[in-house]
């Protein structure tokens, strides 16, 4: 086994960087660095940062593409860190010391974020062990059931991997089902009004309209109870685990895929903020403390590579970093609140400085409480959009080109939020698990203005059918018409519903 520990001069740099970070009030898990050669690093990257994963070809594909990107396109992974306690971070062997230092500062920022951001509060910090356990469990299933069958089932589960409820770790949702599954026989609903002593008062004390309303309410309640699930479910994987006719090993595989999806979810929810935070700290730590005069040019070169934008692309590192700096600046100068918002004089606004110095405090608050959606929603300003040259683009059918659609603040913000909300994934709910009273699964796509990619949707329905084994229905909107797409195990049908 090769020695993967930090060489002495970097170990010294690590101690220095971590001390500086602590002085800046960063608060992080212990970090264990490993220096890997590029093949091992890319292997680990393909595994999502973990040394052991269950056997699956997509890791191989990922590895193949990373390696090709490295060899042909010269793209390099500098850093990788995983959200565990202690955190593991990987450095690429043979990088310059200044690169390694910058990466360590960056990693320190990430680990501080993992530890303190509330969206990570529910993640499993022993995921390293859990991943290894998952691998072992699936390997055992493979040994017992056979590789092809299990691989096929994993493919099926991965196809549904995004059908989870990203917010469920943080709030209590109504259960899929209360424990009163059997509804009493069809007794007619009797609405009892208030007790009436005098006959002539009846219609005044219990007006008929009111009684009718009560009756309807009770009826609806009863209908709801008869429905299954009682409430639309967003965590479709959980619903399948509870109600689909799965074999034990299938249940295990599905559970593993779901667990891992939930583990990775917060990282997707905070990509911009997390990278922005880490970039903020690597640049602060490097430029103010660590980098020597000889190293500063190399650092600047690297840093500009990290935050580079080009070809109209939005770089999450850049966006996060700039937005955090913008917030820091605004809170330092007091550019917020009623007085500032109501100020009409552009010149005055520009020169506004109340000397509050609250910037650092504010961004620490952001790092604790926000995710990408709330971060953008609250802190993106028209001035920022203008300064950073943001725009929205759209596809032009006539020219087969993407073109700039608008530079309006409102549209940009809306589009950005749309792309971030729910991971930029469509909202799909289980509406009825006993559709047509024949155990068919009825899903509803909450249409937000963008259609589903239909070929993928059909293949996904096929996969759902493999698990549910009964026909699958999907209510969605295709080209502005409400449609019900059905798959009965062999054929698709599509009909209009209104």
């Amino acid at each position, binding site marked *: 086994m090769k020695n993967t520990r930090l060489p002495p001069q970097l170990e010294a740099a690590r101690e220095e960087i971590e001390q500086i970070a602590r002085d800046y009030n960063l608060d992080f898990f212990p970090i264990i660095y490993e220096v890997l050669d590029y093949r091992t690093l890319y292997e680990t990257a393909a595994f999502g940062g973990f040394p052991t994963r269950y056997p699956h070809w997509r890791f*191989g594909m990922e590895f193949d593409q990373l390696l090709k990107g490295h060899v042909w396109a010269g793209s390099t992974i500098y850093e990788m860190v995983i959200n565990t306690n202690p955190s593991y971070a990987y450095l690429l062997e043979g990088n310059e010391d200044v690169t390694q230092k910058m990466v360590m500062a960056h990693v320190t920022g990430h680990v501080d974020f993992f530890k303190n951001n509330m969206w990570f509060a529910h993640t499993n910090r022993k995921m390293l062990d859990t991943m290894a356990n998952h691998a072992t469990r699936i390997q055992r299933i493979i040994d017992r059931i056979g590789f092809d069958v299990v691989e096929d089932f994993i493919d099926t589960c991965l196809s549904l991997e995004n059908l989870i409820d990203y917010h469920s770790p943080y709030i209590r949702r109504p259960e899929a089902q209360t424990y009163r599954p059997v509804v009493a026989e069809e007794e007619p609903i009797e609405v009892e009004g208030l007790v009436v002593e005098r006959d002539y008062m009846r219609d005044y004390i219990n007006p008929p309209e009111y009684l009718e309303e009560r009756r309807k309410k009770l009826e609806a309640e009863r209908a709801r109870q008869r429905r299954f699930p009682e409430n639309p479910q967003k965590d479709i994987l959980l619903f399948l685990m509870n109600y689909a006719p799965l074999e034990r090993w299938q249940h295990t595989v599905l559970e593993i895929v779901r667990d891992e999806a939930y583990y990775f979810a917060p990282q997707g929810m905070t990509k911009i903020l997390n990278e922005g935070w880490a970039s903020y700290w690597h640049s602060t730590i490097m430029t103010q403390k660590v980098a020597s005069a000889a190293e500063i040019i190399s650092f600047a070169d690297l840093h500009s590579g990290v935050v580079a934008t080009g070809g109209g*692309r939005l770089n999450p590192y850049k966006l996060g970093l700039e937005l955090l700096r913008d917030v820091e600046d605004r809170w330092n100068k007091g550019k917020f609140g009623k007085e500032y918002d109501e100020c009409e004089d552009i010149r005055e606004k520009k020169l506004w400085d109340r000397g509050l110095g609250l910037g650092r405090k504010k961004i620490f608050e952001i790092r604790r409480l926000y995710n990408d959606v709330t971060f953008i929603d609250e802190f993106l300003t028209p001035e920022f959009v203008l300064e950073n040259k943001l*725009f929205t683009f759209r*596809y032009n059918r006539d020219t*087969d080109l993407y073109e700039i659609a608008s530079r309006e603040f409102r549209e940009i913000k809306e*589009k950005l939020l749309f792309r971030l909300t729910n991971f*930029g994934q469509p909202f799909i709910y289980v509406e009825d698990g006993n559709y047509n009273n024949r155990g068919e699964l009825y899903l509803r796509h909450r249409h937000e203005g963008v259609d589903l990619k239909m070929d993928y949707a059909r293949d996904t329905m096929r996969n759902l059918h493999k698990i549910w084994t009964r026909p699958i229905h999907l209510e969605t909107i295709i080209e502005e018409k409400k449609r019900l797409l059905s798959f009965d195990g062999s054929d698709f049908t599509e009909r209009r519903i209104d």
Partner: protein
Amino acid sequence: MKRVDRDLGRFRQIVRGKIKKDLRKYMSHGEMIGRQGKRFVSIPVPQIDIPQFRYGARQGGGVGQGDGDVGDPIAQGDGQPGQGQAGSEPGKHTLEVDVSLEELAAILGEELQLPNIQPKGKKNIVSEKDKYSGIRRTGPNSLRHFKRTYREALRRQISAGDYDSADPIVVPIRDDMRYRSWKETMLPESNAVIIYMMDVSGSMGTEQKELVRITAFWIETWLRSQYKEIDIRYIVHDAAAKEVDQETFYHIREGGGTKISSAYKLCNRLIDERYPAAEWNIYPFHFSDGDNWGGGDTRECIELLKRELLPKVNLFCYGQVRSLYGSGRFAHDLEEYLGNDDRIVVSEIAERDDIYDTIKDFLGKGK
């Protein structure tokens, strides 16, 4: 072995399966030939992806950053400008997979169920090859093996107690000297030559030549996997035949009539001069639209084949491409006179989809 190699291997296997499944399609596409490197062919495979409920990319659009006015184009339709994690996936539609030529041949062989070729009667031919992998105690100074010499000297000094680690001087003497030397290895060898002949008379158009080109590519791929070394010769003919290089072979356009016998004569001379039948596996492939100059020449061709060519070759293949003008007589004549000789294969290539079957006809005999 790395852990990821297991998954990488499986991924490659899946890709291979995809290529195999669509082999007929790939075989009728010429573009693959253009992507041929020295040892690899780059094959575009449809993206292997796990389907999920996802937004259609085009309707959505997204947010970008940079200069430009409203209405300015920023990217091609299929290259969706990405937003990193913030949204749309970068547009990746096809996967470029590098497949080595050996592997491609293996896929071809498996899918078409091609038998391995039994080289004719060459089992005893071996060549000697010298490899400098041995060590001897004598030899010229230019071949002195410094490391081994040094090691011998060190060993001797240590065992004699002359070695002092504080003052590590090692002096080799005559007995310590070691020299590189050769070992003889025997290599069984079989050589093969492909002789492509093509009719370039006026009736062979661009599409016909393309058919020939694609067919030839697959023949070569297969035969290369079967023989260590392969010579390829190109002959074009109309009323007269001449030998040309590869470039000319595929691009030349001549006019005039067709005398197939001219090509067969040239082919025969080539074999006699350069490729004695006892030492070479010989594969002549002839492509034409089947139009020949009158009955006399066809008779001459058949005579030539019967007496000269067929006894010398492993397999003689005649591929007839359909053209607007060709009568297609020649294939019938061959069938009629030589149809029961199993050293000759006649196949008709009417369109690109037939290439698959033609290859199967040509190479399915295992000769």
